[in-house]
């Protein structure tokens, strides 16, 4: 099941992220895909706010340091696989985060698609020719099919308000 959304600005992208964040539970895995500059870190800023991380806490790109951890109503592990290549990624020690007690948010998730056992909430971001416009697609894989169903109802409710 897929939900297609569009955003006209970084602040709209953050708002969409906040709605997603409010609906997440312990153990959830969110994988983000999209090119450099598509808005992955931006939507994650919204997701973490939705999870209760204060907005004064900066949610920064972990491309270099690979993992940032935040405390919201759940522990949040913000990972970034930008620098990683090849199947060696699956040999890395990500299990303790991915199968841990918090919410795991992974940028460049296409690199560990297989490793996630096809069960994740997939957020794809694409930029459109207009400068700040983005196409955002949410797709629930595996058990997240149901989660997406719930989002669909909630998002449409929120949007019609």
């Amino acid at each position: 099941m897929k939900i297609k959304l569009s955003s006209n600005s970084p602040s709209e992208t953050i708002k969409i992220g906040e709605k997603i964040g409010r609906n997440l539970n312990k153990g959830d895995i969110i994988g983000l895909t999209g090119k450099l500059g598509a808005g992955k870190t931006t939507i994650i800023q919204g997701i973490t706010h939705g999870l209760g991380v204060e907005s004064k806490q900066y949610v920064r790109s972990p491309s270099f340091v690979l993992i940032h951890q935040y405390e919201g109503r759940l522990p949040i592990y913000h990972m970034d696989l930008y620098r990683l290549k090849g199947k060696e990624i699956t040999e890395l020690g990500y299990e303790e985060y991915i199968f841990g007690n918090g919410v795991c948010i992974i940028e460049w998730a296409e690199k560990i698609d297989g490793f996630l056992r096809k069960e994740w909430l997939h957020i794809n971001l694409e930029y459109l020719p207009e400068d700040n416009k983005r196409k955002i697609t949410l797709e629930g894989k595996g058990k997240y099919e149901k989660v997406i169903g719930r989002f669909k109802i909630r998002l449409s409710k929120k949007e019609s308000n």
Partner: protein
Amino acid sequence: MLILGIETSCDETSASIVKDGTIIVSNIITSQDKIHAPFGGVVPELASREQLESIGWVVKEALNKANTKFSGIDAIAVTYGPGLAGSLLIGVEFAKTLSYSLSIPLIGINHIHAHLYANFLGQHNIEFPYIGLVISGGHTSLFYVEDFMTYSFLGQTRDDACGEAFDKGAQILNLGYPGGPLIDRISKKGNLSAIKFPRAHLENKFDFSFSGLKTSLLRYVEKKGKISKKELPDIAASFQEAIVDVLVKKAILAAEYKKTDTIVVGGGVSANSRIRGKLEEEGKKKNLKIHFPNELKLCTDNGAMVAGLGYWMLKEGKTSSLDLDIQPNIF
């Protein structure tokens, strides 16, 4: 007094012996670039595995180069954060074990503060208070520093670190890895005002943002289609200038705001020739004293900066107990 400094916060394993806080007796750094090259960067588990294999001989080599033994060391300083948890643990546990078995003091060191301290190694003319600017792949932060122990946080990046912007910019321009030195080199042949890339203005005037700049470069390159060899240096130089411009302006603004005449820069990006040139030039106009680490080896992660800062902390009695824990997220 000889202090052994251990630094394992990211992809480098380093150990150093520093005498009286300022004289580097030895400084061993195993650059793991070769090991990481196939991945295009730092791999956390690999970094910590590699560090586990390296730490023993790196410390031994630091002692050998210093013509001393464990019995000649007065204290051990170690980075406890920020950084990768697995990597930090190896340094901290190693240091704790040594401290216990040798019955000498242990001093936990903040990696960011140590980067600023790198300036005091081999230089004796830096006066407090100063504005500290830490710029690297993982950090872009401004501090007001009153002494070796007292750091007030002024601002930091809200998204990408400046070193990351260099790295991603180089990727967009197909220059390769590591991006910082490559952009620096090619920019020397380019016109830095050829293209007007954006500079971010934020509510907190000491915060930074480089994510929009990255997107702007991407848009520019996409619109152009193919970049000619002739044009590449101009694009790189203009992109670099957008980063450097903001760093320089905000560091000077912070110095004026805090009414201090000294700026101290640390971290890997402080090796960049344009930031050095421009901050010196602009600082001169405002009668500011600008300091960068003496050598490249002191810009990037190293044990000497840890040992050096450890000396002053020890003098102030700021030692750590054996339950010193890693703090991957502090700043």
